[in-house]
């Protein structure tokens, strides 16, 4: 790569970094951009520009996460994650306690729109697994409650719930293998669920982490 090309890429990146900075911090975007002009070494300039793009996106994300709509969207997502955790225990409970109406209603929300194909799994699921999922659901609710109250300590219950969810996911694989029934046939959907949960946790961490430097 030639020095001229490096400088050109640096200028493009720098323009982008200044563009993504939040409106209130536009001055800083300009400051970073002007600083590039003072860097003579093109390699250093390119590295500088890359760093500024990261800084720009970091500030944009911070600003976005403080907006009411971002908080509301994240709260809805965590609520949905909690509901998802309670779904399987409720279906197992309804099936085992012989509530056909409720079982049918919940079965309509499963892949294939019918719970009958899941009966071998519902029979074979060990009793501790619904307890684990319920605990994960409760922890998601705790995280949601603390987030809405702007209280400290919402990230730990969230990731604990996520951990329990992963244990549950791992445990249900063996149940599926022994019964030959696959609950969610599409692996992309399963992977997307895990990725979505992790992303929600990351956003929650970014939203709630302390940005103060002031010591006691």
């Amino acid at each position, binding site marked *: 790569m030639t020095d001229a090309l490096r400088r050109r890429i640096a200028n493009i990146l720098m323009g982008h970094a200044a563009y993504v900075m939040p409106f209130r911090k536009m001055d800083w975007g300009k400051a970073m951009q002007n600083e590039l002009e003072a860097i003579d070494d093109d390699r250093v300039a390119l590295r500088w520009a890359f*760093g500024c793009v990261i800084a720009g996106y970091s500030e944009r994300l911070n600003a976005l996460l403080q907006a009411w709509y971002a908080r509301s969207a994240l709260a809805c997502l965590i609520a949905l994650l909690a509901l998802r955790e309670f779904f399987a225990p409720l279906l197992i409970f309804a099936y085992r306690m012989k509530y056909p109406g409720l079982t049918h209603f919940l079965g309509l929300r499963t892949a294939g729109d019918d719970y009958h194909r899941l009966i071998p799994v519902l029979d074979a699921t060990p009793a501790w697994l619904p307890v684990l999922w319920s605990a994960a659901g409760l922890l998601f609710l705790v995280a949601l409650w603390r987030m809405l109250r702007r209280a400290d300590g919402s990230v730990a219950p969230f990731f604990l719930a996520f951990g329990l969810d992963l244990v549950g996911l791992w445990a249900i694989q063996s149940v599926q293998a022994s019964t030959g029934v696959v609950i969610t046939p599409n692996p992309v959907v399963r992977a997307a669920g895990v990725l979505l949960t992790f992303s929600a946790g990351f956003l929650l961490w970014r939203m709630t982490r*302390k*940005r103060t430097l002031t010591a006691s």
Partner: protein
Amino acid sequence: MGRKSIHSSQTDRLLAALREDAQAWRHGYALMKQTGLQSGTLYPILLRLCDQGLLEAQWREADKPGKPPRHVYRLTPAGLAFALRQVAPSRKRITSLREAKA
């Protein structure tokens, strides 16, 4: 009740650099060279310090003609007090660790 400090080692490095000759104004690039921090780490810290009133920023005309004005930074009195409080203990810790290793 005060809040728990969450300052990082990078923040400490920057505060230590700004604390040396605290009255001097410095450019972002000079701070990067002095601290070894990359711009992606340096600017968010500078922004955070500014937001909390620990750092002041100003526009200054460039030394070279034809170049755009540049942002310069220095600690506010509150920032200097904070830097003295925060950086000194960590330096003491490093010194005592070095002594222990020796």
